[in-house]
Protein backbone atom coordinates (compact mmCIF):
# COMPACT_ATOMS: atom_id res chain seq x y z
CA UNK A 1 0.00 0.00 0.00
CA UNK A 2 2.68 2.45 1.04
CA UNK A 3 4.88 1.47 -1.87
CA UNK A 4 1.99 1.88 -4.25
CA UNK A 5 1.34 5.28 -2.77
CA UNK A 6 4.86 6.47 -3.21
CA UNK A 7 5.02 5.06 -6.73
CA UNK A 8 1.89 7.04 -7.52
CA UNK A 9 3.36 10.13 -5.92
CA UNK A 10 6.61 9.92 -7.83
CA UNK A 11 4.72 9.24 -11.06
CA UNK A 12 2.86 12.50 -10.46
CA UNK A 13 6.13 14.28 -9.78
CA UNK A 14 7.60 12.96 -13.01
CA UNK A 15 4.56 14.04 -15.02
CA UNK A 16 4.78 17.53 -13.56
CA UNK A 17 8.46 17.83 -14.34
CA UNK A 18 8.15 16.45 -17.87
CA UNK A 19 5.21 18.66 -18.79
CA UNK A 20 6.96 21.73 -17.39
CA UNK A 21 10.27 21.14 -19.04
CA UNK A 22 9.45 19.35 -22.28
CA UNK A 23 8.46 22.29 -24.52
CA UNK A 24 11.64 24.14 -23.68
CA UNK A 25 13.68 20.98 -24.10
CA UNK A 26 12.09 20.49 -27.51
CA UNK A 27 12.85 24.08 -28.48
CA UNK A 28 16.51 23.48 -27.64
CA UNK A 29 16.45 20.26 -29.63
CA UNK A 30 14.99 22.04 -32.65
CA UNK A 31 17.41 24.92 -32.40
CA UNK A 32 20.33 22.57 -32.94
CA UNK A 33 18.91 21.07 -36.10
CA UNK A 34 19.69 22.48 -39.48
CA UNK A 35 18.46 21.96 -43.00
CA UNK A 36 15.80 19.35 -43.52
CA UNK A 37 16.51 17.60 -40.23
CA UNK A 38 14.18 20.14 -38.70
CA UNK A 39 11.18 18.48 -40.32
CA UNK A 40 11.81 15.14 -38.66
CA UNK A 41 10.27 14.58 -35.29
CA UNK A 42 12.87 13.46 -32.77
CA UNK A 43 12.44 12.90 -29.06
CA UNK A 44 16.14 12.65 -28.27
CA UNK A 45 19.06 14.85 -29.34
CA UNK A 46 20.52 13.55 -32.59
CA UNK A 47 21.90 16.63 -34.24
CA UNK A 48 24.20 19.28 -32.99
CA UNK A 49 24.70 22.26 -35.23
CA UNK A 50 25.23 25.87 -34.24
CA UNK A 51 24.01 27.00 -37.64
CA UNK A 52 20.72 28.50 -36.41
CA UNK A 53 22.48 30.40 -33.66
CA UNK A 54 25.00 31.71 -36.12
CA UNK A 55 22.19 32.83 -38.43
CA UNK A 56 20.30 34.60 -35.69
CA UNK A 57 23.31 36.35 -34.25
CA UNK A 58 24.90 37.43 -37.53
CA UNK A 59 22.07 38.00 -39.98
CA UNK A 60 19.58 40.72 -39.24
CA UNK A 61 19.43 42.78 -36.13
CA UNK A 62 18.76 40.30 -33.38
CA UNK A 63 21.82 41.22 -31.27
CA UNK A 64 20.67 44.82 -31.43
CA UNK A 65 17.18 43.74 -30.36
CA UNK A 66 18.68 42.12 -27.28
CA UNK A 67 20.51 45.34 -26.45
CA UNK A 68 17.27 47.28 -26.93
CA UNK A 69 15.42 45.00 -24.56
CA UNK A 70 18.22 45.22 -22.00
CA UNK A 71 18.29 48.99 -22.26
CA UNK A 72 14.53 49.51 -21.98
CA UNK A 73 14.05 47.01 -19.16
CA UNK A 74 16.97 48.33 -17.12
CA UNK A 75 16.02 51.98 -17.45
CA UNK A 76 12.42 51.21 -16.60
CA UNK A 77 13.42 49.23 -13.52
CA UNK A 78 15.83 51.89 -12.25
CA UNK A 79 13.32 54.70 -12.66
CA UNK A 80 10.50 52.67 -11.13
CA UNK A 81 12.51 51.63 -8.11
CA UNK A 82 13.77 55.16 -7.58
CA UNK A 83 10.25 56.58 -7.62
CA UNK A 84 8.77 53.69 -5.71
CA UNK A 85 11.07 53.61 -2.74
CA UNK A 86 10.16 57.01 -1.36
CA UNK A 87 6.53 56.57 -2.32
CA UNK A 88 6.29 53.24 -0.58
CA UNK A 89 7.81 54.71 2.56
CA UNK A 90 5.06 57.29 2.63
CA UNK A 91 2.41 54.68 1.96
CA UNK A 92 3.68 52.12 4.43
CA UNK A 93 4.93 54.16 7.36
CA UNK A 94 2.95 57.38 7.48
CA UNK A 95 -0.72 57.69 8.26
CA UNK A 96 -2.40 60.46 6.34
CA UNK A 97 -5.77 61.18 4.88
CA UNK A 98 -6.34 59.72 1.42
CA UNK A 99 -3.83 56.94 1.84
CA UNK A 100 -6.39 54.21 1.39
CA UNK A 101 -7.70 55.80 -1.79
CA UNK A 102 -4.18 56.11 -3.12
CA UNK A 103 -3.40 52.46 -2.50
CA UNK A 104 -6.63 51.54 -4.17
CA UNK A 105 -5.76 53.62 -7.21
CA UNK A 106 -2.31 52.12 -7.47
CA UNK A 107 -3.68 48.62 -7.24
CA UNK A 108 -6.23 49.36 -9.95
CA UNK A 109 -3.61 50.83 -12.25
CA UNK A 110 -1.57 47.65 -11.93
CA UNK A 111 -4.59 45.76 -13.24
CA UNK A 112 -5.20 48.09 -16.16
CA UNK A 113 -5.79 46.36 -19.45
CA UNK A 114 -3.00 47.80 -21.55
CA UNK A 115 -5.28 48.17 -24.50
CA UNK A 116 -7.26 50.77 -22.55
CA UNK A 117 -4.41 53.25 -22.66
CA UNK A 118 -3.07 52.27 -26.06
CA UNK A 119 -5.03 54.84 -28.06
CA UNK A 120 -4.22 57.69 -25.69
CA UNK A 121 -0.58 56.71 -25.32
CA UNK A 122 -0.21 56.48 -29.07
CA UNK A 123 -1.39 60.06 -29.48
CA UNK A 124 0.87 61.24 -26.66
CA UNK A 125 3.96 59.49 -27.99
CA UNK A 126 3.36 60.92 -31.40
CA UNK A 127 2.94 64.40 -29.94
CA UNK A 128 6.14 64.07 -27.89
CA UNK A 129 8.02 63.05 -31.03
CA UNK A 130 9.37 59.86 -29.48
CA UNK A 131 7.57 57.44 -31.80
CA UNK A 132 9.92 54.65 -32.89
CA UNK A 133 12.47 55.39 -30.19
CA UNK A 134 13.16 53.29 -27.15
CA UNK A 135 12.05 56.19 -24.94
CA UNK A 136 8.48 55.58 -26.01
CA UNK A 137 8.72 52.13 -24.45
CA UNK A 138 10.41 53.42 -21.31
CA UNK A 139 7.49 55.79 -20.89
CA UNK A 140 4.82 53.22 -21.69
CA UNK A 141 6.25 50.49 -19.45
CA UNK A 142 6.00 52.75 -16.39
CA UNK A 143 2.31 52.00 -16.44
CA UNK A 144 2.79 48.48 -15.17
CA UNK A 145 6.21 48.49 -13.51
CA UNK A 146 5.59 51.53 -11.32
CA UNK A 147 2.39 50.44 -9.57
CA UNK A 148 3.80 46.95 -9.18
CA UNK A 149 7.03 48.09 -7.53
CA UNK A 150 5.21 50.57 -5.28
CA UNK A 151 2.77 47.91 -4.17
CA UNK A 152 5.33 45.22 -3.44
CA UNK A 153 7.77 47.56 -1.73
CA UNK A 154 4.93 48.92 0.41
CA UNK A 155 4.11 45.43 1.65
CA UNK A 156 7.78 44.74 2.35
CA UNK A 157 8.30 48.01 4.18
CA UNK A 158 5.20 47.57 6.29
CA UNK A 159 6.71 44.43 7.81
CA UNK A 160 9.86 46.13 9.07
CA UNK A 161 9.80 46.70 12.85
CA UNK A 162 8.62 50.09 14.20
CA UNK A 163 11.47 50.28 16.71
CA UNK A 164 14.00 51.02 13.99
CA UNK A 165 12.21 54.12 12.96
CA UNK A 166 11.50 55.26 16.52
CA UNK A 167 15.14 55.17 17.41
CA UNK A 168 15.92 57.33 14.41
CA UNK A 169 13.12 59.76 15.25
CA UNK A 170 14.45 60.15 18.78
CA UNK A 171 17.81 60.98 17.22
CA UNK A 172 16.01 63.76 15.35
CA UNK A 173 16.29 62.27 11.88
CA UNK A 174 13.89 63.60 9.26
CA UNK A 175 11.93 61.42 6.83
CA UNK A 176 14.52 61.59 4.06
CA UNK A 177 17.22 60.46 6.45
CA UNK A 178 15.03 57.66 7.73
CA UNK A 179 14.45 56.37 4.23
CA UNK A 180 18.02 56.59 3.06
CA UNK A 181 19.87 55.64 6.24
CA UNK A 182 17.55 53.28 8.05
CA UNK A 183 15.36 51.59 5.46
CA UNK A 184 17.50 51.49 2.35
CA UNK A 185 20.14 49.18 3.85
CA UNK A 186 17.41 46.79 4.99
CA UNK A 187 15.54 46.93 1.72
CA UNK A 188 18.23 45.64 -0.61
CA UNK A 189 16.86 42.11 -0.89
CA UNK A 190 13.38 43.45 -1.54
CA UNK A 191 14.69 45.90 -4.11
CA UNK A 192 16.54 43.19 -5.96
CA UNK A 193 13.50 40.92 -6.06
CA UNK A 194 11.07 43.63 -7.07
CA UNK A 195 13.47 44.92 -9.64
CA UNK A 196 13.93 41.47 -11.10
CA UNK A 197 10.20 40.88 -11.40
CA UNK A 198 9.67 44.27 -12.99
CA UNK A 199 12.58 43.56 -15.33
CA UNK A 200 11.01 40.30 -16.46
CA UNK A 201 7.66 42.01 -17.03
CA UNK A 202 9.29 44.72 -19.16
CA UNK A 203 11.43 42.20 -21.00
CA UNK A 204 8.37 40.18 -22.00
CA UNK A 205 6.03 43.03 -22.96
CA UNK A 206 4.60 42.77 -26.46
CA UNK A 207 1.63 45.01 -27.25
CA UNK A 208 3.31 48.38 -26.64
CA UNK A 209 6.50 47.25 -28.32
CA UNK A 210 4.53 46.15 -31.35
CA UNK A 211 2.76 49.50 -31.57
CA UNK A 212 5.34 52.11 -30.64
CA UNK A 213 8.51 51.05 -32.44
CA UNK A 214 8.83 50.06 -36.05
CA UNK A 215 12.35 49.37 -37.27
CA UNK A 216 14.37 46.19 -37.10
CA UNK A 217 16.82 48.30 -35.15
CA UNK A 218 14.42 49.59 -32.53
CA UNK A 219 12.40 46.43 -31.94
CA UNK A 220 12.63 44.61 -28.67
CA UNK A 221 13.16 40.89 -28.41
CA UNK A 222 9.54 39.65 -28.20
CA UNK A 223 8.50 41.62 -31.28
CA UNK A 224 11.63 40.57 -33.12
CA UNK A 225 10.84 36.93 -32.45
CA UNK A 226 7.18 37.30 -33.38
CA UNK A 227 8.09 39.01 -36.65
CA UNK A 228 11.17 36.97 -37.45
CA UNK A 229 10.81 36.18 -41.11
CA UNK A 230 13.14 34.14 -43.16
CA UNK A 231 15.34 35.91 -45.61
CA UNK A 232 15.92 32.34 -46.61
CA UNK A 233 14.22 29.89 -48.89
CA UNK A 234 12.58 28.01 -46.09
CA UNK A 235 8.99 28.60 -45.21
CA UNK A 236 8.74 29.73 -41.62
CA UNK A 237 12.28 29.76 -40.25
CA UNK A 238 11.53 27.55 -37.27
CA UNK A 239 15.18 26.79 -36.58
CA UNK A 240 16.30 30.40 -36.13
CA UNK A 241 13.09 31.22 -34.23
CA UNK A 242 13.82 28.43 -31.76
CA UNK A 243 17.46 29.53 -31.48
CA UNK A 244 16.36 33.10 -30.76
CA UNK A 245 13.85 31.82 -28.23
CA UNK A 246 16.48 29.83 -26.42
CA UNK A 247 18.87 32.79 -26.39
CA UNK A 248 16.38 35.12 -24.72
CA UNK A 249 14.99 32.53 -22.35
CA UNK A 250 18.11 30.96 -20.89
CA UNK A 251 19.24 34.10 -18.99
CA UNK A 252 15.74 34.50 -17.57
CA UNK A 253 15.62 30.91 -16.42
CA UNK A 254 19.04 31.22 -14.82
CA UNK A 255 18.00 34.38 -13.00
CA UNK A 256 14.75 32.83 -11.87
CA UNK A 257 16.49 29.73 -10.58
CA UNK A 258 19.10 31.75 -8.70
CA UNK A 259 16.51 34.01 -7.10
CA UNK A 260 13.86 31.29 -6.71
CA UNK A 261 13.00 31.85 -3.09
CA UNK A 262 13.07 35.62 -3.31
CA UNK A 263 10.82 35.62 -6.36
CA UNK A 264 8.27 33.47 -4.62
CA UNK A 265 8.30 35.92 -1.73
CA UNK A 266 7.91 38.85 -4.11
CA UNK A 267 5.04 37.30 -6.02
CA UNK A 268 3.16 36.41 -2.90
CA UNK A 269 3.69 39.89 -1.50
CA UNK A 270 2.12 41.26 -4.66
CA UNK A 271 -0.75 38.85 -4.42
CA UNK A 272 -1.71 37.04 -1.25
CA UNK A 273 -0.71 39.51 1.42
CA UNK A 274 -2.14 42.31 -0.72
Amino acid sequence: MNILKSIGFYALVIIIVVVSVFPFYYAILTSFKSGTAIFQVDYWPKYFSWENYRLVMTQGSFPLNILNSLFVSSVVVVISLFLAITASFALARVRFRGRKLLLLTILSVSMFPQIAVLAGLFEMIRALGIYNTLWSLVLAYMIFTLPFTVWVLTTFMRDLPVELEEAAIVDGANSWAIVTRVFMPLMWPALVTTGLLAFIAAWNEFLFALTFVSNNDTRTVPVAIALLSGASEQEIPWGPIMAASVIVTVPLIVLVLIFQRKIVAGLTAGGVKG
Partner: protein
Amino acid sequence: MAASDTATAARSRRSNLKAERIRSSWIFLAPMLLVLAFVAGWPLLKTIWFGFTDASLDALSSADFIGFNNYLEWVDYGDGDGEWYGLLADPDWWQAVYNTVFFSLVSVFFETIFGTIVALVLHAEFKGRGFVRAAVLIPWAIPTIVSAKMWAWMMNDQFGILNDLFLHIGVISQPIAWTASADTAMIAVLIVDIWKTTPFMALLILAGLQMIPQDIYEAAKIDGINPVKVFFRVTLPLIKPALAVAVIFRALDALRVFDLIYVLTPNNSQTKTMSVFAQENLFQFDKFAYGSAASTLLFLVIGVITIVYLKIARVDLEGGR
Protein backbone atom coordinates in the same frame (compact mmCIF):
# COMPACT_ATOMS: atom_id res chain seq x y z
CA MET B 1 6.03 71.59 37.06
CA ALA B 2 9.21 70.73 35.26
CA ALA B 3 7.87 67.33 34.37
CA SER B 4 4.72 68.72 32.75
CA ASP B 5 6.81 71.22 30.81
CA THR B 6 8.86 68.46 29.36
CA ALA B 7 5.68 66.54 28.50
CA THR B 8 4.18 69.52 26.65
CA ALA B 9 7.39 70.17 24.83
CA ALA B 10 7.59 66.55 23.85
CA ARG B 11 4.02 66.56 22.67
CA SER B 12 4.49 69.66 20.56
CA ARG B 13 7.69 68.28 19.18
CA ARG B 14 5.91 65.08 18.32
CA SER B 15 3.07 66.88 16.53
CA ASN B 16 5.63 68.98 14.69
CA LEU B 17 7.30 65.78 13.72
CA LYS B 18 4.03 64.31 12.60
CA ALA B 19 3.29 67.33 10.45
CA GLU B 20 6.77 67.13 9.00
CA ARG B 21 6.26 63.46 8.22
CA ILE B 22 2.97 64.07 6.47
CA ARG B 23 4.41 66.97 4.52
CA SER B 24 7.41 65.01 3.40
CA SER B 25 5.33 61.97 2.53
CA TRP B 26 3.42 64.05 0.00
CA ILE B 27 6.72 65.22 -1.42
CA PHE B 28 7.79 61.57 -1.55
CA LEU B 29 4.64 60.59 -3.32
CA ALA B 30 4.49 63.44 -5.78
CA PRO B 31 6.95 62.20 -8.44
CA MET B 32 5.36 58.75 -8.53
CA LEU B 33 1.87 60.19 -8.75
CA LEU B 34 2.86 62.62 -11.46
CA VAL B 35 4.37 59.87 -13.58
CA LEU B 36 1.32 57.66 -13.09
CA ALA B 37 -1.03 60.48 -14.00
CA PHE B 38 1.04 61.13 -17.08
CA VAL B 39 1.37 57.55 -18.38
CA ALA B 40 -1.88 56.06 -17.12
CA GLY B 41 -4.40 58.73 -16.18
CA TRP B 42 -4.11 61.02 -19.16
CA PRO B 43 -3.97 58.28 -21.84
CA LEU B 44 -6.95 56.57 -20.25
CA LEU B 45 -8.98 59.76 -20.35
CA LYS B 46 -7.92 60.28 -23.94
CA THR B 47 -9.00 56.77 -24.88
CA ILE B 48 -12.38 57.31 -23.27
CA TRP B 49 -12.68 60.63 -25.09
CA PHE B 50 -11.80 59.07 -28.44
CA GLY B 51 -14.58 56.55 -27.82
CA PHE B 52 -17.05 59.42 -27.98
CA THR B 53 -15.68 60.89 -31.18
CA ASP B 54 -15.34 60.01 -34.84
CA ALA B 55 -11.53 59.98 -34.68
CA SER B 56 -9.64 58.10 -37.36
CA LEU B 57 -5.99 57.14 -37.25
CA ASP B 58 -5.15 59.70 -39.90
CA ALA B 59 -7.03 62.53 -38.27
CA LEU B 60 -6.68 62.25 -34.51
CA SER B 61 -6.59 65.95 -33.84
CA SER B 62 -9.69 66.81 -35.84
CA ALA B 63 -11.94 64.34 -34.02
CA ASP B 64 -15.50 65.52 -33.41
CA PHE B 65 -17.70 64.58 -30.50
CA ILE B 66 -20.49 62.22 -31.57
CA GLY B 67 -21.87 61.12 -28.22
CA PHE B 68 -22.67 57.46 -27.68
CA ASN B 69 -22.83 56.63 -31.38
CA ASN B 70 -19.86 54.29 -31.22
CA TYR B 71 -21.65 52.34 -28.53
CA LEU B 72 -25.19 52.33 -29.86
CA GLU B 73 -26.88 54.25 -32.59
CA TRP B 74 -30.14 53.89 -34.45
CA VAL B 75 -29.57 54.50 -38.12
CA ASP B 76 -32.75 55.40 -39.92
CA TYR B 77 -32.69 54.48 -43.57
CA GLY B 78 -35.35 57.11 -44.21
CA ASP B 79 -37.89 54.64 -45.57
CA GLY B 80 -39.27 53.64 -42.22
CA ASP B 81 -36.60 50.99 -42.03
CA GLY B 82 -33.54 51.25 -39.85
CA GLU B 83 -30.96 49.33 -37.91
CA TRP B 84 -29.03 49.48 -34.67
CA TYR B 85 -25.35 50.23 -35.09
CA GLY B 86 -22.48 50.45 -32.64
CA LEU B 87 -20.51 48.21 -30.36
CA LEU B 88 -23.47 47.00 -28.32
CA ALA B 89 -25.23 45.87 -31.49
CA ASP B 90 -22.14 44.35 -33.10
CA PRO B 91 -22.17 40.54 -33.18
CA ASP B 92 -18.37 40.50 -33.62
CA TRP B 93 -17.97 42.36 -30.36
CA TRP B 94 -20.22 39.96 -28.51
CA GLN B 95 -18.36 37.03 -30.04
CA ALA B 96 -15.15 38.59 -28.69
CA VAL B 97 -16.76 39.04 -25.27
CA TYR B 98 -17.88 35.42 -25.31
CA ASN B 99 -14.42 34.22 -26.39
CA THR B 100 -12.75 36.25 -23.66
CA VAL B 101 -15.08 35.09 -20.91
CA PHE B 102 -14.89 31.49 -22.05
CA PHE B 103 -11.10 31.64 -22.24
CA SER B 104 -10.84 33.22 -18.79
CA LEU B 105 -13.24 30.81 -17.10
CA VAL B 106 -11.75 27.64 -18.55
CA SER B 107 -8.11 28.65 -18.20
CA VAL B 108 -8.50 29.85 -14.63
CA PHE B 109 -10.50 26.75 -13.71
CA PHE B 110 -7.83 24.36 -14.91
CA GLU B 111 -5.00 26.50 -13.62
CA THR B 112 -6.55 26.44 -10.17
CA ILE B 113 -6.91 22.67 -10.17
CA PHE B 114 -3.47 21.96 -11.59
CA GLY B 115 -1.97 24.74 -9.49
CA THR B 116 -3.39 23.16 -6.33
CA ILE B 117 -2.07 19.74 -7.29
CA VAL B 118 1.39 21.11 -8.00
CA ALA B 119 1.33 23.13 -4.78
CA LEU B 120 0.38 20.06 -2.75
CA VAL B 121 3.20 18.10 -4.33
CA LEU B 122 5.70 20.85 -3.63
CA HIS B 123 4.42 21.10 -0.08
CA ALA B 124 5.14 17.45 0.60
CA GLU B 125 8.62 16.51 1.70
CA PHE B 126 10.52 14.31 -0.68
CA LYS B 127 13.91 13.90 -2.22
CA GLY B 128 14.56 16.29 -5.07
CA ARG B 129 11.90 18.81 -4.10
CA GLY B 130 14.19 21.73 -4.90
CA PHE B 131 14.74 20.35 -8.36
CA VAL B 132 11.03 19.91 -9.00
CA ARG B 133 10.29 23.43 -7.82
CA ALA B 134 12.93 24.75 -10.17
CA ALA B 135 11.46 22.76 -13.06
CA VAL B 136 7.98 24.03 -12.36
CA LEU B 137 9.18 27.63 -12.49
CA ILE B 138 10.48 27.28 -16.05
CA PRO B 139 7.19 27.83 -17.92
CA TRP B 140 6.61 30.94 -15.85
CA ALA B 141 10.04 32.33 -16.73
CA ILE B 142 9.60 31.89 -20.48
CA PRO B 143 8.31 35.01 -22.25
CA THR B 144 4.76 34.63 -23.55
CA ILE B 145 5.78 35.22 -27.14
CA VAL B 146 8.43 32.55 -26.88
CA SER B 147 5.95 30.07 -25.39
CA ALA B 148 3.52 30.86 -28.18
CA LYS B 149 6.18 30.20 -30.80
CA MET B 150 7.43 27.05 -29.09
CA TRP B 151 3.96 25.60 -28.91
CA ALA B 152 3.09 26.75 -32.42
CA TRP B 153 6.01 24.65 -33.57
CA MET B 154 5.00 21.67 -31.44
CA MET B 155 1.44 21.98 -32.77
CA ASN B 156 2.47 22.32 -36.41
CA ASP B 157 0.17 20.08 -38.43
CA GLN B 158 2.85 18.56 -40.66
CA PHE B 159 6.00 18.45 -38.56
CA GLY B 160 4.72 18.99 -35.02
CA ILE B 161 5.69 16.64 -32.24
CA LEU B 162 2.25 16.77 -30.64
CA ASN B 163 0.55 15.15 -33.63
CA ASP B 164 3.39 12.65 -33.86
CA LEU B 165 3.02 11.73 -30.21
CA PHE B 166 -0.77 11.47 -30.29
CA LEU B 167 -0.67 9.43 -33.49
CA HIS B 168 1.77 7.03 -31.91
CA ILE B 169 -0.25 6.44 -28.78
CA GLY B 170 -3.40 6.31 -30.87
CA VAL B 171 -5.35 9.22 -29.39
CA ILE B 172 -5.97 10.61 -32.87
CA SER B 173 -6.11 8.86 -36.22
CA GLN B 174 -4.95 11.71 -38.44
CA PRO B 175 -2.94 14.87 -37.88
CA ILE B 176 -4.85 17.76 -36.34
CA ALA B 177 -4.33 21.34 -37.48
CA TRP B 178 -4.33 22.60 -33.91
CA THR B 179 -4.08 26.33 -34.44
CA ALA B 180 -6.01 26.56 -37.71
CA SER B 181 -9.16 24.53 -37.34
CA ALA B 182 -12.17 26.06 -35.66
CA ASP B 183 -12.66 23.21 -33.21
CA THR B 184 -9.16 23.21 -31.82
CA ALA B 185 -7.91 26.80 -32.05
CA MET B 186 -9.35 27.71 -28.65
CA ILE B 187 -8.09 24.44 -27.18
CA ALA B 188 -4.61 25.22 -28.46
CA VAL B 189 -4.66 28.67 -26.87
CA LEU B 190 -5.95 27.22 -23.61
CA ILE B 191 -3.27 24.53 -23.50
CA VAL B 192 -0.49 27.08 -23.86
CA ASP B 193 -2.00 29.48 -21.34
CA ILE B 194 -2.61 26.80 -18.76
CA TRP B 195 0.88 25.43 -19.22
CA LYS B 196 2.39 28.88 -18.85
CA THR B 197 0.50 30.20 -15.83
CA THR B 198 -0.12 27.14 -13.67
CA PRO B 199 3.26 27.72 -11.95
CA PHE B 200 2.14 31.19 -10.87
CA MET B 201 -1.02 29.73 -9.35
CA ALA B 202 0.94 26.95 -7.71
CA LEU B 203 3.32 29.41 -6.06
CA LEU B 204 0.53 31.55 -4.63
CA ILE B 205 -1.32 28.48 -3.35
CA LEU B 206 1.91 27.04 -1.94
CA ALA B 207 2.40 30.24 0.03
CA GLY B 208 -1.07 29.74 1.45
CA LEU B 209 -0.29 26.13 2.33
CA GLN B 210 2.87 27.08 4.14
CA MET B 211 0.94 29.37 6.46
CA ILE B 212 -1.11 26.48 7.81
CA PRO B 213 0.29 25.39 11.18
CA GLN B 214 1.71 21.86 11.08
CA ASP B 215 0.02 20.67 14.29
CA ILE B 216 -3.37 20.64 12.56
CA TYR B 217 -2.08 17.92 10.29
CA GLU B 218 -0.47 16.09 13.16
CA ALA B 219 -3.82 15.98 14.95
CA ALA B 220 -5.57 14.70 11.83
CA LYS B 221 -2.91 12.04 11.37
CA ILE B 222 -3.27 10.78 14.92
CA ASP B 223 -7.03 10.60 14.48
CA GLY B 224 -6.37 8.50 11.37
CA ILE B 225 -8.50 10.63 9.05
CA ASN B 226 -8.28 9.83 5.34
CA PRO B 227 -5.86 12.30 3.64
CA VAL B 228 -8.43 13.15 0.95
CA LYS B 229 -10.88 14.07 3.68
CA VAL B 230 -8.18 16.10 5.40
CA PHE B 231 -7.65 18.05 2.22
CA PHE B 232 -11.30 18.92 1.73
CA ARG B 233 -12.18 19.46 5.39
CA VAL B 234 -9.03 21.11 6.69
CA THR B 235 -6.64 22.27 4.01
CA LEU B 236 -9.05 23.68 1.49
CA PRO B 237 -10.94 25.97 3.88
CA LEU B 238 -7.64 27.24 5.25
CA ILE B 239 -6.12 28.10 1.87
CA LYS B 240 -9.36 29.56 0.56
CA PRO B 241 -8.30 33.20 0.99
CA ALA B 242 -5.01 32.58 -0.82
CA LEU B 243 -6.89 30.70 -3.51
CA ALA B 244 -9.46 33.45 -3.96
CA VAL B 245 -6.82 36.11 -4.44
CA ALA B 246 -4.85 33.96 -6.86
CA VAL B 247 -7.96 33.23 -8.89
CA ILE B 248 -8.95 36.86 -9.21
CA PHE B 249 -5.41 37.91 -10.11
CA ARG B 250 -5.32 35.34 -12.86
CA ALA B 251 -8.83 36.14 -14.04
CA LEU B 252 -7.96 39.82 -14.47
CA ASP B 253 -4.88 38.81 -16.40
CA ALA B 254 -6.83 36.39 -18.57
CA LEU B 255 -9.49 38.97 -19.41
CA ARG B 256 -6.94 41.24 -21.05
CA VAL B 257 -5.08 38.50 -22.95
CA PHE B 258 -3.55 39.70 -26.20
CA ASP B 259 -0.04 38.56 -27.11
CA LEU B 260 -0.59 34.81 -26.90
CA ILE B 261 -3.56 34.94 -29.24
CA TYR B 262 -2.01 37.48 -31.59
CA VAL B 263 0.94 35.16 -32.17
CA LEU B 264 -0.58 31.69 -31.89
CA THR B 265 -3.88 32.05 -33.77
CA PRO B 266 -3.87 35.34 -35.68
CA ASN B 267 -7.11 36.46 -37.33
CA ASN B 268 -9.05 33.48 -36.06
CA SER B 269 -12.63 34.42 -35.20
CA GLN B 270 -12.82 31.56 -32.70
CA THR B 271 -10.14 32.99 -30.45
CA LYS B 272 -10.51 36.74 -30.97
CA THR B 273 -10.67 38.34 -27.54
CA MET B 274 -11.74 41.82 -26.52
CA SER B 275 -8.18 43.13 -26.54
CA VAL B 276 -7.51 41.71 -29.99
CA PHE B 277 -10.81 43.11 -31.24
CA ALA B 278 -9.91 46.56 -29.94
CA GLN B 279 -6.37 46.47 -31.33
CA GLU B 280 -7.64 45.38 -34.73
CA ASN B 281 -10.14 48.23 -34.95
CA LEU B 282 -7.67 50.78 -33.61
CA PHE B 283 -4.83 50.07 -35.98
CA GLN B 284 -5.84 47.71 -38.77
CA PHE B 285 -9.20 49.11 -39.78
CA ASP B 286 -10.03 52.71 -40.22
CA LYS B 287 -11.99 52.74 -36.96
CA PHE B 288 -9.86 54.32 -34.29
CA ALA B 289 -12.85 55.67 -32.40
CA TYR B 290 -14.66 52.35 -32.46
CA GLY B 291 -11.56 50.60 -31.13
CA SER B 292 -11.26 53.21 -28.39
CA ALA B 293 -14.86 52.55 -27.39
CA ALA B 294 -14.12 48.82 -27.23
CA SER B 295 -11.04 49.52 -25.08
CA THR B 296 -13.16 51.62 -22.77
CA LEU B 297 -15.72 48.85 -22.35
CA LEU B 298 -12.98 46.34 -21.57
CA PHE B 299 -11.61 48.76 -19.01
CA LEU B 300 -15.04 49.05 -17.40
CA VAL B 301 -15.44 45.28 -17.21
CA ILE B 302 -12.06 44.84 -15.57
CA GLY B 303 -12.70 47.83 -13.30
CA VAL B 304 -15.92 46.31 -11.99
CA ILE B 305 -14.25 42.96 -11.37
CA THR B 306 -11.38 44.67 -9.56
CA ILE B 307 -13.78 46.42 -7.23
CA VAL B 308 -15.64 43.19 -6.54
CA TYR B 309 -12.30 41.54 -5.86
CA LEU B 310 -11.28 44.21 -3.39
CA LYS B 311 -14.57 43.70 -1.57
CA ILE B 312 -14.47 39.91 -1.55
CA ALA B 313 -10.83 39.53 -0.67
CA ARG B 314 -11.09 42.38 1.87
CA VAL B 315 -7.68 43.63 0.89
CA ASP B 316 -6.00 45.01 3.96
CA LEU B 317 -5.15 48.49 2.75
CA GLU B 318 -4.28 49.71 6.22
CA GLY B 319 -1.60 47.10 6.57
CA GLY B 320 -3.00 45.92 9.91
CA ARG B 321 -1.62 48.83 11.87
